[in-house]
């Protein structure tokens, strides 16, 4: 891992994070794609560089580290699957709202403004009445 690769990965992560924190789903998708690029840079950069790891193409010392490459390979394919799923989400959002804005949760907004209903306290006032002093006057037998 050279300083250059670390800085590149950091840069990709930073830009990806900046995009992920936005509200447009297309930007979030691009941000996530950049995050996975950053992760791949980290993985590949952590291994030794060299010739393509094909046995017989050179002596073992000169081959690149194959394990991070195998990991990065699956990571590339998986992030394609993730991108496809997120794009489907954007597509659905467009079908429903003609936009790809990630909206705030309406239920949460309602609770923030008005509070949850106090269903569990229904009938409690009656209870306080039983428990409290009755106000009726005394009667003689």
């Amino acid at each position, binding site marked *: 891992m050279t300083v250059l690769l670390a800085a590149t990965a950091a840069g990709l992560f930073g830009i990806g994070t900046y995009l992920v924190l936005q509200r447009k789903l297309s930007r979030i998708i691009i941000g996530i794609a950049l995050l996975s690029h950053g992760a791949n840079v980290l993985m590949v950069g952590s291994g030794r560089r060299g010739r393509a790891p094909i046995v017989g193409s050179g002596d073992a010392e000169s081959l690149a580290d194959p394990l991070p490459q195998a990991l990065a390979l699956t990571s590339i394919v998986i992030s394609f699957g993730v991108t496809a799923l997120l794009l489907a989400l954007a597509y659905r959002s467009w079908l429903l709202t003609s936009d790809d804005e990630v909206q705030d949760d309406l239920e949460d907004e309602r609770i923030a403004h008005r509070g949850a209903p106090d269903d569990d306290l229904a009938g409690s006032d009656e209870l*306080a009445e039983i428990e409290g002093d009755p106000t009726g006057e005394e009667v003689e037998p």
Partner: protein
Amino acid sequence: MIVLLLAHLVAGLGLVAVGGRAGRRAVLVGALAPAATLAWLALQAGRVLDGEVVSESLAWVPELGLDVDLRLDGFAALFVALVSGIGVLVFLYAGRYLRAGGEGQGRLLGLLVLFSGSMLGLVLADDLVVLFGFWELTSLTSFLLIGNDHTSARARTAALQALLVTGAGGLAMLGGFVLIGQATGGGTYRLSEVLASPPGGTPVTVGLVLVLVGAFTKSAQYPFHSWLPGAMVAPTPVSAYLHSATMVKAGVYLIGRFAPAFTGVWVWRPLVVGVGLVTMLCAGLRALRQHDLKLILAYGTISQLGFMVVMFGLGTAETVVDACELVLAHALFKAALFMVVGIVDRQAGSRDIRLLRRPGPGWGPTLAVLLVSAGSMAGFPLLFGFVAKEDAFAGLEPGSFAYAGLVLAPIVAASMLTVAYSLRLVWGVLGRDGDGLDTTAARTAAPPATSPSTTAPAGSGPAPAPRASFLAPAAVLAGLTLLFGAVPALIDGVISAAGESLTAAAEPVHLAVWHGWNLPLLLSALVLGGGAVLFMARRAVDRVLALGHHLPSGGQGYLAVLRTLNVVADRTTAVVQTGSLPVYAGVILTTAALLTTGALVLGDGWPGWPTLVGSAGHVAVCVALLVTAGAAAAVRRRFSAALLLGATGYAMAGLFVVQGGADLALTQVAIETLTTVLFVLVLRRLPDRFERRSGPAVRFVRLVAALSVAVMVFTVALTAGGNRVAEPVSSEMVERSLPDAGGRNVVNVILVDFRGLDTMSEITVLAAAAIGSVALARAGRRPRSSGAPERVPPPAPEGRRLERLVVIDVAVRLVFSAVIVGSIYLLFVGHNQPGGGFVGGIVAGAAVALRYVAGGIDDVRNLSRAHAWTVLGAGLLLAALTVLAPVVLGAAPLESTVLETDLPLLGHLKVTTALPFDVGVYLVVLGLLLMVFESFGDDPHLVTTPVDADEVEGPAESRPEAPVEVRAS
């Protein structure tokens, strides 16, 4: 003992299940378990009275040292007698009280049995954790019993209040138990061992306070008392059993157990005695203002419980023994009184003292039981209550311990209140003539907590007298009150054994009615006289007490606590759960970044700066990566952003080449092309530009979060990269690739062989993503034939016609075949050269993309009769079978073998068994891509219409000869 507990469990659950159909017999079944317990107790009585201990143990969680330890000593025996004895009587009483075949009766009786078992376990438990378990079981059964009439909102609320208060107290108690148990030397939770050598220190003091909170909530002590009056909505047998005679005494029981050992802790006496005295006085005053007979009794119970708490809490040898007498006396008279009130309620249809008429002939025995029991409550001579109260006064005589007088005076005052509300109770039951009935007052007041009968209207002639069998259980209790009151020496042994098992300092007691002319006798006379005066002057007293109406009640306090909790929960939710994805993601990412960076910078893992730059090639690709990524983030058009992201992907491929990853570069290029196609498919529908919405402050916050993540990644990368201690495992993989797996391409061998199981799960994830995206894109789309009004497509505008050129069509078909063959080649050589299932599948997908671009989704669908999901599923199945096949043959999953054959024409062929697995991967990836085109390629707003000769009226030379599709938007 364990057998008895299990018997309660089985009988209880059985009654809950089928008791409703058993009718009257259910009552007898219910009484069986407590009756068996009584019989067992009688067998053990001799040994227990001699001071022996009967114990039993069952390993529960031996790893944690948790055992079900049960222990029967004198004190436990007293409670077992109460729980089971009164239990039997309550069942007999319930048989008459409940109307035959009423709804929920099987459940009620079953729950009563379960409660009886829980209470039995509580008093027998010798392990603090087990005790806690039974404690909470009694709370739960109490909750269910109070809320048995679940159609009534009042019952539900009262049940909830009881559960919340006693449950919260129980949790506090558990915390206390843990503190105390951990403070003992060996961390023992055995009650008897803890009490034998009590630990000390601040944790124990805190633990004791927590245990006391639990005891106070359970025994309805101020300020936690308000659930008990509410619990009076339960049917009267439940009130008689749980809320007067047994369950509410659990707290008293615990204080009695703990007091002798912990009375020296500074916080114990002030807290216990203070709370008990306040409870005794306040509840006694409240009782004087109640009109509902059950509420008079409920407040009386709270007050009496306060008395017992004081007596046990003092913890001297004498007061502890006196408290045992009080427990017995109270259980006898209070259960009987509840039963009598239930009888009045049943027969007269009301228990409001303003509505009750003077009972007619035939009520004599009932009134006798009432007088005996109320007299015992008031402390009338020759009744057992008198004996107990006399002994209590004697135990509190000034000089018997420090500040004894300070305790004695409030108790005498509170006892006067007891006399006054006992008289009020009797006066209320005796009722008045028809003229004296104050129906208006009763109507304005709250209705009785629960009135089991609405059929017998109050005020229409004298109520019918109860049957003898209805009264019998209460009569038995009153008889015992009389017997023990007249000949108290009968229970010398029981009380002595109970006292001696609590504290070794207790001496054998000799109960007597007459102790000579002494201070307690004087006080008894004073109490009786004072109480009578209070009752006679009730109009004046009531005016004074009415002032107390303005004081906040415990019920209001409970409501205030609940409302505050709700408000706090709302406010917290409003702050913590904003519902905004950017806020959540920002908080999570920034927190992770700052914590990680902080730990790495403050720790000593910094390895120093590594090589600055690898090679010139690195510099070029890294600059390209960062520039394209930055541009993708900065541009304001969606298409430009997608294309720049593609450029970043190609730059990644460049980095892989520089780094020596041939497979990676191949895959990256193919996948980046497909990603770009995918983006175009979706983005063509979305607005062209991102509109700028967020202000500078928001962007600044975003920037800070992004920077902190970048710094974290940079630090992690350098620290992790420079701290490698072990030899990379991959060098061994390189060595063993050819001999073990028969492949030269180590990356591919790792994917399909060494780490094949990982790949298996990864393609499963891919399949899930493919299914998910198809579902998202196509959900809600209706088949055309559903009868719903169809959207009529607008007529095709002239400029939007899409036509296919034969040249392109043919060219694409040729290229398509070539690319597919190439992808299959990549698949087969992958084991030895760059390639493999992933790359092959993606290249095949790229070929499909070509067909799509040329001919639309229909052309893709016509490629094969197999559906996209068939390809996907077949690939997944093939891969899974390859993983599992060696297992069937007795080898490890995915174990590979090399097959070599000489075929005519093709020559020497060497195949490993990993190949089918790679074919599976190929099919899954291809299936994923087909699914993606299926998702986004099909446009619901674009409708393919058959060619209409009149419509296609373009210039003659541009008219195609091949079949034409006209797509209208």
